[in-house]
């Protein structure tokens, strides 16, 4: 390969090393691409035929070869620059982020508030925004457990599922309204969070991750198998839609009911329901953020962060680690429960399919990629991981490829997460001894 093209050059010459490295990468790419891209099955009615696409394999191999060379050269230069000025770049970026934040955050909230009335916003856009906001809420909920308290939870989707099923079952069985079910679902999820918390309190890091992973699967398996209550794999359909303070969003309301559009003298449009749902989740998301920011400044929030930093030191300062961890689990779970009930009412149909491990992984990826403990980071990471794949549906074939590449790139360039700057919760004026 590389040696053959350049005879006589010594082994350790940088050019040879570069070509050799790229050659190995290309060889791996070839081996992977041959079965993955080289063959395609075509379903022609009765028989399945194989189609060969060896030109794709060739393109991939050549692409990886040159891509690897470019990457190595770029990375070498970036590494040299970094070693010259350690830390300065990161700090500068954090400062820029801070200044932008003061302007960007209100702008972002304003944009979110008027989104449904913007000219380009149609049913699809509003629905997509709703979908993204659910993940923002889940990300913020998990951020309390993982980002602030430092407890690696791989089964967060369990609380999402509990919220969804609580709402579906309570609403269908007892006819409770969405607004009554919401706090109930939250309480139930929080309760299960505590129930999970008790046995795992002594565990940390990897061990905790394994147990929570198991918990998430247990909940899913229960949902699949407890047929009489959860409907098993068929799920629950016909979950009641939310109403606008008792006014349903339908074209033909039941006897004695007034529909939303009749009450406000509007023409019926299914869009109304989507806009309403959007505002509900937006309100939930804003409440989640407000509560989290408030908690961070309260003793319990500081205790979470301190616990993440050093458990032994916390003990010696009179913090009860048991209670502190349980509150983190419970509050994180509660927000997951809220998001779950909203998901149920939005979909109108839920099944265990929606609560698989990959959901937990995506939510965790949102928290980690955004920068542990960073609220704004969660939003940015959600746009990255949820919105982008939805928008790029045409490239669905390459979705996982891009997803993986993005993850690798972020871990190389910003291993702390996209917005990892941690703002202190207490600040003093110059020269004063006062705080709070």
């Amino acid at each position, binding site marked *: 390969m590389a040696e053959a093209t350049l005879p006589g050059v010594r082994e350790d010459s940088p050019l040879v090393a570069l070509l050799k490295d790229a050659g190995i990468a290309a060889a791996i790419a070839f081996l992977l691409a041959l079965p993955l891209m080289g063959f395609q099955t075509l379903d022609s009615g009765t028989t399945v035929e194989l189609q060969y696409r060896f030109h794709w394999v060739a393109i991939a191999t050549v692409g990886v070869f040159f891509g690897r060379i470019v990457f190595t050269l770029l990375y070498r230069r970036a590494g040299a620059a970094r070693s010259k000025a350690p830390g300065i770049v990161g700090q500068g970026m954090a400062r820029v982020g801070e200044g932008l934040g003061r302007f960007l955050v209100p702008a972002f909230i304003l944009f979110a508030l008027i989104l449904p009335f913007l000219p380009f916003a149609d049913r699809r856009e509003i629905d997509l925004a709703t979908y993204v906001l659910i993940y923002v809420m889940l990300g913020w909920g998990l951020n309390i457990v993982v980002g602030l308290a430092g407890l690696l939870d791989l089964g967060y989707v369990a609380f999402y599922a509990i919220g969804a099923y609580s709402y579906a079952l309570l609403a269908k069985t007892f006819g409770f309204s969405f607004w009554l079910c919401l706090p109930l679902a939250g309480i139930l999820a929080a309760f299960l969070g505590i129930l999970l918390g008790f046995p795992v309190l002594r565990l940390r890091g990897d061990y905790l991750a394994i147990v929570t992973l198991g918990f998430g699967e247990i909940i899913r398996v229960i949902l699949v198998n407890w047929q009489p209550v959860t409907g098993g794999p068929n799920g629950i359909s016909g979950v009641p839609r939310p109403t606008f303070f008792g006014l349903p969003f339908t074209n033909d309301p039941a006897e004695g009911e007034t529909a939303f559009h009749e009450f406000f003298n509007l023409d019926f449009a299914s869009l109304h329901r989507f806009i309403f749902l959007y505002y509900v989740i937006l309100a939930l998301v804003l409440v989640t953020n407000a509560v989290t920011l408030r908690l961070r400044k309260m*003793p319990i929030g*500081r*205790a979470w*962060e*301190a616990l993440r*930093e*050093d458990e*032994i*030191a*916390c*003990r*010696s*300062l*009179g*913090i*009860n*680690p048991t209670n502190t961890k349980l509150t983190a689990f419970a509050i994180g779970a509660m927000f997951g429960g809220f998001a779950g009930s909203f998901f149920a009412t939005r979909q109108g149909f839920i099944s265990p399919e929606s609560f698989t491990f990959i959901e937990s992984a995506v939510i965790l990826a949102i928290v980690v990629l955004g920068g542990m403990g960073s609220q704004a980071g969660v939003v940015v990471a959600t746009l990255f991981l949820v919105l982008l794949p939805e928008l790029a549906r045409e490239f669905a074939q390459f979705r996982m490829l891009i997803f993986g590449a993005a993850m690798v790139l972020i871990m190389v360039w910003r291993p702390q997460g996209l917005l990892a700057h*941690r703002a*202190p*919760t*207490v*600040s*003093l004026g110059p020269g004063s*001894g*006062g*705080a*709070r």
Partner: protein
Amino acid sequence: MLRLSGVHTFYGRIEALRGVDLTVEEGEIVTLIGANGAGKSTLLMTICGNPRARRGEVRFEGRDITQMPTHDIVKLGIAQSPEGRRIFPRMSVIENLKMGAQNFGLAHFDEDLDRIFRLFPILKDRQSQRGGTLSGGQQQMLAIARALMSRPRLLLLDEPSLGLAPLVVKQIFETIREINQRQRVTVLLVEQNAYHALRLAHRGYVLVNGRISMSGSGAELLANPEVRAAYLEGGHV
């Protein structure tokens, strides 16, 4: 004020403390010296109930605290600056101090903060800096300051001189004396730096293999040939 009688502590099946008797009277600075692995830190941790003594009794102001959970012991007025400082590196100096105070009510926070900043002026200059970016000496000061924020009556210090330059060690020990004299905090100090510790302390204990082998006033122990041979030769004279 603090009385340990016949305390045995185990790590699994390994006996780290083999029947320790020790007292600390109100207003004293008592130091505990000994070689690596003698059980000094274990003794300090046992007072805080982590790990708990398997046999024997720990009494604080007449109260049996042997079986109490750590966070309750701390609330009785015992504060600990643990071995290796263990400040919260990602949190600011002020947040670290707040962590020290918050389980005892934040009512006196501003007042206590002023007091702490008079004791450690450098912390005032560094108040919004992250704990992890402080120098070793500053981190040690922060660890002591954080422990003091809970207004303890008994302060347990585990090797405050660990890994610090001689000049900084001197400064830290000076501050410990000040805390003891001006703020009337009783101090139990665990040290490897026997010379400084014995000069500072009213009384001292020597711990060897989990047993107290000697005790006496700081000056007595400093003059004792055995102590000199074991802990002072080659160091300060």
